[in-house]
């Protein structure tokens, strides 16, 4: 199911992406 179809799905996916990006940023920066 596409999370963009619902507001709660969109917001949840946004927070999941944010958490993933913390790891990505730390990996890129070597921190």
């Amino acid at each position: 199911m596409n999370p963009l179809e619902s507001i709660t799905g969109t917001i949840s996916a946004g927070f999941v992406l944010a958490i993933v990006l913390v790891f990505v940023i730390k990996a890129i920066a070597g921190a």
Partner: protein
Amino acid sequence: MDFNFLSLDRWLHIVAGVTWIGLLYYFNFVQAPALAAATADKGGPGGAGITKYVAPRALLWFRMSAAVTWLTGALYLAKNGHLHGAFTLGLMAESGQLYLATIGVGAWLGTIMLFNVWVLIWPNQKKVLGLTPATDEQKAKARRTAFLASRTNTLLSIPMLMCMGSAFHGLPF
């Protein structure tokens, strides 16, 4: 007393950014569900007033504040000498990699969002609102494209705001 251009620019960036993302959340959390409810309410007044009087004004402030947000953000990075470093995520930098990676991911997310506003949302909303001529089939397709781009921007705004706040103040974990 020294004039702090960077502080003024950052202030404008925040004011324009709040205007942009505030209207984005208005479209996603208020206007779109309200129009759906108005369409479903067969005995009600309908959504014509919203599409005629509210949506065009909201879209004007929306796309203009998006442009100002991006320009003031890019100017801030450029004046600090971080424009290249941010957009290359600090991968070629000798120091400050965490700052550049964090603000860089935020800058890329904001840039994708600006693209969505001006290339996907606004031209399609013009068709939906009847500001440019379109058949019913073209309007339905335009409505779907604009909806998905707007929802994508709502999703991307959450990590984008995390990056903007975290670049100076630290990541949440």
